[in-house]
């Protein structure tokens, strides 16, 4: 019989599916929470957890318990006391006004009838719910203002857009394109991160390609032991190089300059980059190079026309690894650039420690910093994974 055995097979595979899907859910949940939160209005973030976005807004239950029996579940049941009418609700914006009204008699009858009068806190919750349904304080479920505020470095109590529309923005904001370069903003930090990461990726790979070619296809004295030494250099941990170099930079006045961090990343990335490219270039078929040399090709021609084009997969993996390593690096940026040219990681690190609970800015900022790596990950997954694996030995 075909069907029962198929069902049995399915049943046997069920635990596998359950465990795997469960683990995937656990893995995605933290990022999902951050992603959803970054689009929520700041008041919502602090009032309810991100997992409640599909539930009714805060105060709905209290409203149902105390008010819905007369006013209706949508608040519109009594026509001359329509709770969705902003002009009416305007009079009961605050909990004490509302509470007074609840205690008063209306048309000779107790306002609340048999229902007990809610306590202060509940009343405040109901008042805020009424402000919301009447449109006085309409809050969208999702907003982009967290991102706008984070990018422009806005630090007020309202939002960048509202303040700019009202014209009372703080002195360091111009409400035009210039705000993208506000040193407190993530927009500027994004640009800085690119300015750090792109040259710091190209330079070491360029240098390493030359050296790797020499190690693969040239004959010179000390080739073997120099390559062994190079492998050994990979063990020097990052932390060990920071102190002398920052002292050296202090003497040369290179602390807080882009050249300083570019050169540092180049130097630190080289041993591993040479090692990886050499392993790839050295394993290219011998015959190709031999026939090229027989045809009179110089080393320069063989390097630019053969070795480089054939090594593109290795170069791509290495490039992605190096770029992301720098993009995600905090320590080197902290030491050599600091607050002078804040990069994304530096800016977020600062916000975590100084802002405390500014989750609306923090979540948006974190997501801005993750966007590029995620795009690279999904677009170039094969190279990305390969680069990450090969890069694991890097100190």
């Amino acid at each position, binding site marked *: 019989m075909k069907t029962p055995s198929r069902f049995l097979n399915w049943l046997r595979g069920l635990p596998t599916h359950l465990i795997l899907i469960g683990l995937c859910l656990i893995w995605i949940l933290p*990022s999902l929470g*951050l992603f959803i939160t970054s689009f929520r209005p700041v008041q919502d973030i602090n009032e309810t957890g991100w997992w409640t976005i599909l539930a009714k807004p805060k105060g709905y239950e209290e409203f149902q318990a105390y008010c819905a029996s007369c006013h209706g579940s949508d608040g519109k049941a009594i026509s001359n006391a329509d709770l969705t009418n902003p002009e009416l609700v305007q009079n009961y914006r605050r909990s004490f006004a509302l509470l007074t009204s609840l205690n008063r008699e209306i048309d000779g009858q107790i306002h609340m009838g048999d229902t007990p009068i809610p306590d202060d806190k509940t009343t405040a919750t109901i008042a805020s719910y009424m402000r919301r349904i009447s449109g006085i304080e309409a809050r969208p479920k999702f907003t982009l203002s967290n991102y706008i505020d984070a990018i422009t470095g806005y630090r007020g109590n309202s939002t960048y857009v509202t303040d700019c529309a009202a014209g009372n923005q703080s002195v360091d904001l111009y409400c035009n394109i210039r705000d993208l370069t506000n040193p407190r903003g993530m927009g500027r930090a994004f640009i800085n991160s690119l300015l750090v990461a792109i040259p710091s990726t190209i330079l070491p790979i360029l240098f390493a390609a030359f050296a790797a070619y020499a190690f693969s296809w040239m004959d010179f004295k000390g080739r073997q032991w120099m390559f062994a030494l190079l492998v050994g250099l990979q063990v020097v941990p990052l932390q060990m190089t*920071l*102190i*002398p170099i920052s002292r050296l930079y202090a003497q040369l006045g290179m602390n807080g300059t882009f050249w300083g961090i570019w050169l540092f990343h*180049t130097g630190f990335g080289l041993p591993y980059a040479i090692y990886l490219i050499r392993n790839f270039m050295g394993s290219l078929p011998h015959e190709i190079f031999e026939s090229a*040399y027989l045809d009179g090709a110089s080393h320069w021609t063989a390097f630019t026309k053969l070795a480089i084009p054939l090594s593109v997969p290795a170069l791509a993996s290495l490039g992605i690894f190096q770029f992301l390593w720098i993009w995600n690096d905090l320590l080197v940026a902290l030491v050599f650039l600091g607050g002078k040219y804040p990069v994304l990681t530096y800016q977020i690190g600062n916000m*975590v420690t100084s802002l405390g609970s500014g989750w609306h800015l923090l979540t948006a900022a974190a997501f801005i910093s993750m966007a590029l*790596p995620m795009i690279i990950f999904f677009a170039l997954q094969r190279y990305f994974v390969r680069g990450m694996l090969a890069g694991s030995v890097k100190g």
Partner: protein
Amino acid sequence: MSKNGSGILRQRPATPWLYLLPSLIVMTIFIVYPGLNTFYLSLRNIDNTSWASTACKAGEACWGVFENYHYALTSTIMQTAFLNNIKWILLMVSGTVAMGLLIAVLADRVRYEAFAKAIIFLPMAISFVGAGVIWKFMYNYDTGQVQIGLLNAIVTSFGGKAVSWLTEPQINTIALIIVGVWMWTGFCMTILAAALKGVPTEILEAARVDGANEWMVFWRIMVPQILPTITVVITTMVINVLKIFDIVYVMTGGNYGTEVIANRLYTEMYKNFQPGRASAIAVVLILVIIPAMIMNIRRFNEQEATR
């Protein structure tokens, strides 16, 4: 492995050095010199004007010129750091390898393998700082009624009392380690999955035909077959964990008893302005790492050779 001599074009003796020179210069300045200089600085006093022995106080134990190492090895805060690093190694390495292996084995049997793996691997693309924010939000603790952190919301919904995950001693280091496991499991999974694919299916099928259940197939055949890869993954993870810095720096700053070696190094250098002590810690760190590194590179070379 190497392709010496034969087939290599003769060239002027200077040509190789033209190709090598840019790299050699940069590496000398940025790796060789700092490596040696760190060692020298670790023997010097606070402002590098004299040997470290001048920092000794009368009547207290003194290690002479190795006074900075006295601090790096015996001070209370460094002992906390060592202890925490050991905790990190034990829990994070076993956590990532076990989870990675589990997911690799399970994903191998389903049709949505690539998708599942992508989800597990995704945190590798995120910076430690970003992960720090994500998890700080997960661990968020409010003194009031409403918990916007998922973990505390779960705890309170079961009637428990909200926990301040990041300041509670003992719990907080574990909380940080979980973040590390979340980030690095994808790495272990990918390497182990590649190794699992290399296990010949005939052996597995033969065992199954002989009546071995999946549990036995896993422990008796799969694990022994991929044991070399598991060792590489473990040593790589040990190195990574020893250097762990960003997670601690972002989430607790090393406070509340969560200090680790690399964060202490940063604190001594850039907050306490004690380059001598920081250098001594760096030297201690590299001495701990080097054995694992050598083991790893040797294994890597062996694998390359057999490929």
